[in-house]
């Protein structure tokens, strides 16, 4: 975990081509971005790709990071989410998903073994993307509502409402699923 000042310093070093500073930031953010990407997309392979692409963008465009506009984490989650939305619009074509085990409609084998996790994953995928992102960022990534608002480009009230609606919808879906399966 870095302080804001440490993060800012490392981002400046990355902008100057410092691979060591990049490696330190990547070691911290790679797993976090992968977890977010996996839960957002519902596919581990995509989560991995989203995390790598996001960090490549940090490497290439670190000079564009403005600490006055928020923390590095919110900037990176925002990039990851935008890439997810872009790829979703493009139908995942450029990732070559044909070769991936976890392509559309085919559950990931690891998740097959974890039925609870799969149920939550499926229920999350039924949420509208904004609700899903708001819930994931606040619950799993530990972002404050203000930071979630920065990632999503929304106001604080809208984020509060998104999280409440997401929890309500998710709870309802999971309760119904469990009521059906004894």
């Amino acid at each position, binding site marked *: 975990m870095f302080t804001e000042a440490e993060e800012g310093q490392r981002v400046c070093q990355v902008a*100057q*081509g410092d*691979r060591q500073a*990049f*490696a330190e930031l*990547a*070691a911290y953010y*790679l*797993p976090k971005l*992968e*977890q977010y990407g*996996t*839960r957002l997309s519902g596919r*581990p392979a995509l*989560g*991995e790709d989203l*995390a*790598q692409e996001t*960090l*490549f963008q940090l*490497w*290439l465009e670190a000079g564009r990071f403005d600490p006055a506009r928020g923390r590095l984490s919110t900037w990176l989650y925002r990039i990851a989410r935008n890439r997810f939305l872009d790829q979703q619009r493009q139908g995942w074509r450029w990732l070559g998903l044909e070769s991936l085990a976890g392509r559309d409609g085919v559950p990931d084998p*690891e998740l097959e073994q*974890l039925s*609870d*996790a799969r*149920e*939550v*994953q499926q229920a*999350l995928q039924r949420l509208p993307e904004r609700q899903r992102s708001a819930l994931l960022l606040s*619950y*799993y990534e530990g972002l404050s509502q203000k930071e979630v608002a920065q990632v999503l480009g929304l106001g604080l009230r809208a984020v509060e409402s998104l999280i409440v609606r997401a*929890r*309500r919808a*998710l*709870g*309802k879906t*999971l*309760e119904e699923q469990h009521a059906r399966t004894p």
Partner: protein
Amino acid sequence: MQEPHETPEAQERLEAWLDRYTVTPRADLEHLLSKLPPQKAPERASARGGRIGSGAIWGGLLDLWRPAALAALPVLLGFVLSSALPTGNGDRWEASEQWVFAAGGEGYYP
């Protein structure tokens, strides 16, 4: 009236479900570092580092000539045209004669 999924117990169950959805990161940092694309060239100023005095100042000054030349172009064009075109009051008839001949006309003396 609370819905069944909004009771405190249901909220606890929801938290428990969410906690069970764990994701094990698989991405390899070394692999990521080995695939880093080349960075864009650093700032021009630093590329000129070692030039006289501050590289940033010289780089900035050298970058100014292009927009300055573009901005001055209409002024220069206006000056050239105003000196070549006839004024209509007869005080620069030589210039107007040259212009009319240059344009393929028969020429006249105003």
